[in-house]
């Protein structure tokens, strides 16, 4: 269906969403908090389903945790370092 996802599959709904929101912004629209949470929950459920139904992946999971921690910790560390260095240059 949408497999593999292309950039257009992502741009289109986002742009259409922005346009719809822009033209309807003077109308009274009920809060979208619950809808967006519901969509996220469905998305995460389908992701979990993909993990749970993949036996090969489940046996590899213990290894992924440590790798994930190394990647996220380093990404956070260097994001902070670059922002700190950039602030001196740009003087925000």
């Amino acid at each position, binding site marked *: *269906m949408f*497999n*593999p*996802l292309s*950039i257009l*599959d*992502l741009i289109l*709904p*986002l*742009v*259409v*969403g*922005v346009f*719809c*929101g*822009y033209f309807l*912004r003077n109308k009274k629209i009920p809060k*979208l908090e619950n*809808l967006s*949470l519901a*969509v*996220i*929950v*469905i*998305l*995460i*459920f*389908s*992701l*979990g*389903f*993909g*993990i*749970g*139904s*993949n*036996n090969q*992946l489940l046996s*590899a*999971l213990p290894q*992924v945790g440590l790798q*994930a*921690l*190394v*990647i*996220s*910790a*380093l*990404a*956070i560390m*260097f*994001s*902070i*370092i*670059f*922002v*700190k260095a950039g*602030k001196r240059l*740009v003087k*925000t």
Partner: protein
Amino acid sequence: MIKWILAALIIGCVAGYVNNNFINAVPNGLISDQLFAVALIALLFVFGFSFALDKAAVDKMRKTGVRIFAFPFLVVLGSIVGGLLAALILQLNLAGTIAVSSGYGWYTLAGPMMGQLMGPKWGTLAFTANFLRELITITTIPLMVKLDRYAPVASGGGTTMDTTLGVIMRYCGKDTLILAFSNGLVLSLIAPFAMVALASFA
């Protein structure tokens, strides 16, 4: 928010495991591919819709000016260097690992997307790494704010426009609202394209 997400992930895992190994009620791909793609497209639509609907958010974007846009790009550079170093330490695919760190904490996007682009193992890695980015940001924010007032905004990445915005404003001051919101928005817009582009080199 996070407890709903964790519940959905755990229930999804159990349902997928039971379906695959015991009952075979539905084809696995129907949920892990088709339902996922529909949900992701709906997510992007709702995200774009609710942003354009929010006049205050649009005004905030207009008022922030050009200078504030330097901030998210420093986070982009930091995430690239962090991912590069991690790939060298862990001996993983270089472009793939940088793609994972270019999710900027948006794990609801990064996990499923990297899964589609590079297979389920990378999907799990991207989900876990970006989930940890949000988790670390929230749990270590009192320490991080001592390092630099804007460190939590850099750490939160794409999540600073929604899930981590509340804690950031509380610890970094209310005036960081515009910076945090625009940082999260710009990074959330960059993330899907950065991941697609990087994964094509992997």
